[in-house]
């Protein structure tokens, strides 16, 4: 059932998303040319100015657009499929609520990942046009490969384990962060839609804008507090540090802590949404 749900969730966003993706990738070519033209072709500053600005401007505009579009599409799909009249169809299917929700979370995550991929690829395409960068791609690849081979030859086994452990942690954090964003988005939508008796869309948008402001207001004091705490911990830790590996352990556990926090937040938000879907659903 999950596969079926995911298929429909994915298709309905993809129908529109692919246009943005193709646009970004397509515009990266003239943008790349424009960057390249900075060096050689246009001696006439006026033409250079127009060409460069429109091509590059269009490209960056499309990148912004796809970033916003992905969030909007994912959010809209979530809201319409769950909380509008379509909910009558969705929630009378012989599918568990948790499966329906998981499919949405998965598709949200996939689209964030795809968008990131598209942006990265388009930047790489631009890079290809700039000769120095293009050449350096091959150099870079060769160098990285050399490094890898050296590492595996010379570094002792337990250090390789460290590298693998760090790599795993980074991968986990890379996965959990967009997951948290998706879940946060979904939670706000769910709360807006289930708690507001009327004007659900307005309530949802209000919640999202309001939470944005709240987060921006809180972020400075919170980051400050965390910074101070980390600083103090580091000081205390360096006083107690015994061997060179202690730092490695510290980083390992610090990352693990972050992963645990992110995972807990994900689980918590997931449960909140699930609870609302099961008990507080109030379709029009």
């Amino acid at each position: 059932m999950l596969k079926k749900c995911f298929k429909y969730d994915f298709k309905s966003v993809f129908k529109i998303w692919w246009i943005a993706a193709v646009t970004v990738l397509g515009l990266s070519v003239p943008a790349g040319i424009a960057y390249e033209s900075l060096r050689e072709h246009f001696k006439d500053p006026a033409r250079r100015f127009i060409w460069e600005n429109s091509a590059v401007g269009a490209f960056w505009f499309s990148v912004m657009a796809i970033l916003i579009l992905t969030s909007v599409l994912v959010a809209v799909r979530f809201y319409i499929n769950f909380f509008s009249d379509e909910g009558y169809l969705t929630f009378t299917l012989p599918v568990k609520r948790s499966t329906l929700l998981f499919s949405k979370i998965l598709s949200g995550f996939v689209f964030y990942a795809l968008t990131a991929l598209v942006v990265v690829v388009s930047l790489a395409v631009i890079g290809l046009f700039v000769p120095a960068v293009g050449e350096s791609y091959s150099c870079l690849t060769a160098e990285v490969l050399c490094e890898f081979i050296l590492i595996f030859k010379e570094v002792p086994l337990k250090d390789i384990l460290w590298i693998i452990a760090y790599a795993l942690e980074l991968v986990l954090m890379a996965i959990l962060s967009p997951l948290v964003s998706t879940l946060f988005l979904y939670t706000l939508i769910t709360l807006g839609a289930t708690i507001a008796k009327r004007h659900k869309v307005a309530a949802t948008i209000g919640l999202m804008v309001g939470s944005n402001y709240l987060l921006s207001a809180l972020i400075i004091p919170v980051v400050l507090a965390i910074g101070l705490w980390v600083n103090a911990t580091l000081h205390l830790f360096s006083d107690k540090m015994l061997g060179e590996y202690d730092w490695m352990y510290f980083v390992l556990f610090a990352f693990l802590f972050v992963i645990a926090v992110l995972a807990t937040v994900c689980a918590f938000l997931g449960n909140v949404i699930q609870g609302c879907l099961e008990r507080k659903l109030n379709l029009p």
Partner: protein
Amino acid sequence: MSEPILVCDKLCKSYKKGVPVLNNFDFTVEPGRIIGLLGPNGCGKSTLLKLIAGLLVPDCGEITVCGIKRSEETNKYISYLPERPYFSTRMSVDEMISFFKEFYADFDELIARKMLFDLGINPKSQVKTLSKGTKEKVQLILVMSRRAKLYMLDEPIGGVDPAARDYILSTIIGNYNEEASVIITTHLIADIEPVLNDFAFMYQGKIHMSGDADETRNTYGKSLDQLFREVFRC
């Protein structure tokens, strides 16, 4: 005797504190019956159907469908036609049929396509572009093309023209089989009477009167429509 298709046991549900829409509500449906839940708007008919379909959770009481406690599994046996159109945005009729086929094992595509053909509805058309009456017919076709055990139709003939009304009632009659039952809620009692086996008058969350539709006409010498007006005279 086979088990009842639906048993509602002491259901209660309120939207606002202290304002119960259903209170200690008992309701049983045997197989092979077309039962009309008749009553004015706001008496709790739609709420009851939503509870059975799982769109609402009862505050207390139990719902059993084909002997199984109500869950997403019992949705397999229930084909629900809500009052509102529930189509996925930007899907064509063809795509809606594929959707139903994928999620419901009991969906009969041939019957659905035949009914669409009879009504002259182009399956390639996007649902959004259809008129209100046509949308309702398509929704009904999708619901009735399932070989379900319990069909629940919430106000199926409410906002529809007389020809469409006739078509909907024909579809319900033609679909009749002894192993399934149909619950129809409506406030248009006169139109639905001849189609019913059983009826229940519902008012303010309670069943005030119920029985065999045809026998009751003999007993009281009145149609259900007239009887209702008498029982609930304002």
